């Protein structure tokens, strides 16, 4: 009888099917490529910039695209390419730092609340629920009105408004995993809470948590550039991509590249991230559907 078991293959093909994906997979690759390009720009941008970022180099303001100024000039006659190469560092950097902090904090709190006694879980969840019901733009606006705008404040604001969402998602995953039998086995084995949280639960939610981090990164980019666009984000002389749109808003009536290009730049960044994440998670759900 044992021979038969040895022969029987794991999981018949009947089960190894899932949803048929929507959208061709090269879109995911395009998304990944856009993410990588922006990451490289954020790291090396300032060295690649052909002109100093604050220098007025042209007499023509809102110049159109030309060989000398590939992306035109801004409202003072500064080189747009250089300004975008430098500004991307703020946009990508700030959002990345905030997203990583928010996800780490959210996931940490989620793990804590899942292995904690019920009352502590309740307290953490209530607090997070309250914070989640302040729309992120509102929170950012009152933070700026109270403390003035600075890079540190922007990071704090983004972390404060995106941690609860990360917490909520991580907690629901952790609760599901906690109910699984291998965690129950670990509990009846007498394992400590820290071990259960870090060794049994965390590795199994790492993938979705990273996906969530990517999505949150996209939202934070939108929030921070929105704030800069309102003039309440990154303050001059520094400028992120959102500030570039704001300072060149005067060129709107002429259809100047100086206003369209930074806006498009933000668009490519966030669309890239979303395409990549969308592809990753639909592939995962297909694989998960097989079991």
């Amino acid at each position: 009888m044992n021979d038969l078991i040895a022969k029987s293959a794991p999981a018949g093909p009947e089960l190894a099917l899932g949803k048929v994906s929507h959208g061709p997979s090269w879109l995911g690759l395009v998304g990944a490529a856009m993410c990588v390009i922006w990451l490289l720009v954020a790291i090396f941008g300032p060295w690649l910039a052909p002109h100093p970022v604050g220098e007025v180099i042209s007499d023509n303001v809102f110049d159109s695209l030309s060989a000398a100024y590939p992306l035109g000039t801004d409202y003072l006659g500064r080189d747009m390419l250089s300004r975008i190469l430098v500004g991307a560092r703020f946009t990508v950097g700030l959002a990345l730092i905030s997203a990583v902090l928010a996800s780490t904090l959210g996931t940490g709190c989620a793990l804590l609340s899942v292995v904690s006694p019920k009352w502590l879980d309740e307290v953490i969840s209530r607090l997070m629920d309250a914070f989640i019901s302040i729309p992120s733009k509102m929170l950012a606006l009152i933070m700026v009105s109270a403390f003035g705008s600075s890079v540190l404040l922007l990071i704090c604001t983004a972390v404060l408004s995106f941690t609860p969402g990360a917490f909520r998602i991580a907690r629901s995953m952790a609760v599901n995993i906690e109910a699984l039998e291998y965690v129950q086995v670990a509990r009846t084995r007498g394992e400590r809470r820290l071990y259960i949280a870090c060794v049994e639960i965390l590795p199994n939610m790492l993938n979705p948590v990273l996906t969530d981090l990517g999505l949150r990164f996209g939202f934070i980019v939108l929030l921070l550039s929105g704030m800069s666009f309102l003039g309440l984000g990154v303050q001059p002389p520094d400028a992120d991509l959102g500030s570039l749109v704001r300072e060149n808003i005067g060129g709107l009536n002429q259809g100047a590249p100086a206003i369209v290009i930074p806006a498009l730049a933000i668009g490519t960044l966030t669309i890239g991230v979303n395409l990549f994440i969308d592809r990753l998670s639909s592939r995962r759900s297909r694989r998960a559907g097989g079991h």
Partner: protein
Amino acid sequence: MSDLIRVEDLRVVACGERGEVEIVKGVSFSLAKGEVLALIGESGSGKTTIALALLGYARRGCRLAGGVVQVGEHDMLALSENELQGLRGNRVSYIAQSAAAAFNPAKKLIDQVVEGALIHGLGSRAVLEAKAIELFRDLALPDPDHIGQRYPHQVSGGQLQRVMAAMALISDPLLVVLDEPTTALDVTTQIDVLRAFKRVVRERGATAVYVSHDLAVVAQMADQIVVLNGGQIFEQSATAPLLKAPAHEYTRSLLLAARPDTTIRPPCGIAEETPLLTIQGLTAGYGNKNMQGMPAIRVLEDIDLTVRRGQAIGVIGESGSGKSTLARVVAGLLTPALGGLTFDGQPLGGSLSERTDEQFRRIQMVFQNADTALNPMHSVGTILSRPLKMYFGLKGAALRERIGELLDLVRLPRAMAERRPNELSGGQKQRVNLARALAAKPDLILCDEVTSALDTVVGAAILELLRDLRQQLGVSYLFISHDISTVRALCDDIVVMYSGHKVQAGTRQSFAQAPFHPYTDLLIHSVPELQQGWLENCGTTCGTLPPIGAKANVPELCTFLSRCPVRVDGLCNHTAPNRRIIDGGSEILCHHDSAELLKTQRDLTTMSLGAYA
């Protein structure tokens, strides 16, 4: 006589990530009008895929790649989607596995039952509804005139399954396809549903294809049996010769595995007299606690149980009987509301935090679902090494050697230590699961439905392994199952639970012969046997229950009252039953004594005893 159904060289492919995989590899069979054909096989055998192909349907991600499926004058594979739409629910109909999921939760049952026929223009709504009510009556549904006005969640699972049969039969189809229609039901419900199915199928002369993994069920229903494995036919013949003299080795193994208690015998003389685990007056449940500390939903009521050293105790009952909760309490995952546990003379804490490391080590739990019992991120070696490091501080070569020994013990190759759980089959996972429990060198292993999620052949091998391990290591089992033959195959003593109460407890032998508790009687005689005609002769239930007045407001009334065939008006509904010892040495919770029970039970047992002798 020409065949009504003809399937020839049917091929179905699945589109996986690595291209197309053939999951049905050239299957051919045929079926005459009025006959019932069974497709039998284990998970992954392609039986459901073939059944759906009879309706010209393939699930998402699958494609009907070739062959002929002839139903009456229609070639199902050559028809357009529109033409198929006109045939489905009209000339060919389908009964799904889980009725609870297959009914739309937002619509009344009657609307769903007549919908197909109405679309196909088989009659006016009034005519069809009258026909549906007639079918409800034929299928022995309670209150046939009004049950259709209810919503799916207001009707029990067994009844829903019969309503679905009515839905399938309302168009007087040429062919009815039944896809594991009773698998999700408890045995005691299954027997009623089977009986109702069989009657309507025979009465209406319907041609049917019955898909199942259970040979005993198939033996009751089918004229022809097709044995499938891996998308191919291994054997096909009429039911009687196949059961008597199976030609293929695989069929033989299926037959053997179907009744483990006829092949496996528990070892005797290992159990000592010293008690290992004692449970006294245990009451537990879920939900918020009230003022007295009693939970809102009580799942276990006043349970007493003793597991002796080296003994295997089986706990059986249907879903909701509280048997798994009992294991969770012993494991420390659920704190009891009342009562206490004693382990090897020491009190055993109700919650995990009250237990000592030594107690953790000595009590190990093995869960039902091998898929979720192993952490998918850890390799088998890592999974096994954790208890070894924790309890014994093993390191390096000693650790590796011990992991090897454990894998030997559960009869897995040592190289398996490198693998991840998702690379293993169901049976292999369950063995790793067992090895992890054994790593702690426990005195007591709690087995919660360890074979239920496995195919019968694989499950039988696990049972054999459990038996051998007990002989070798002298470990005790608290073995929880819904299947009495599994329990009988492995355990010395058996406890029967019904809605949180222990209704009967006794030795294995005492469960071979009447008298039983009325529920035990129902349970034992509801398990289909591997012989044709059993369903017609077994005689359990289905009859009308003795009439009974309103329940008195007494807290501890018999919980089996509403289903009991031997209930007594004025006694059972007014006074709480006592525990009593009956002939054969079992303790039961009932008003009847041995003589009274024997009166109703004797005739039934003589026949079935033959099967276990």
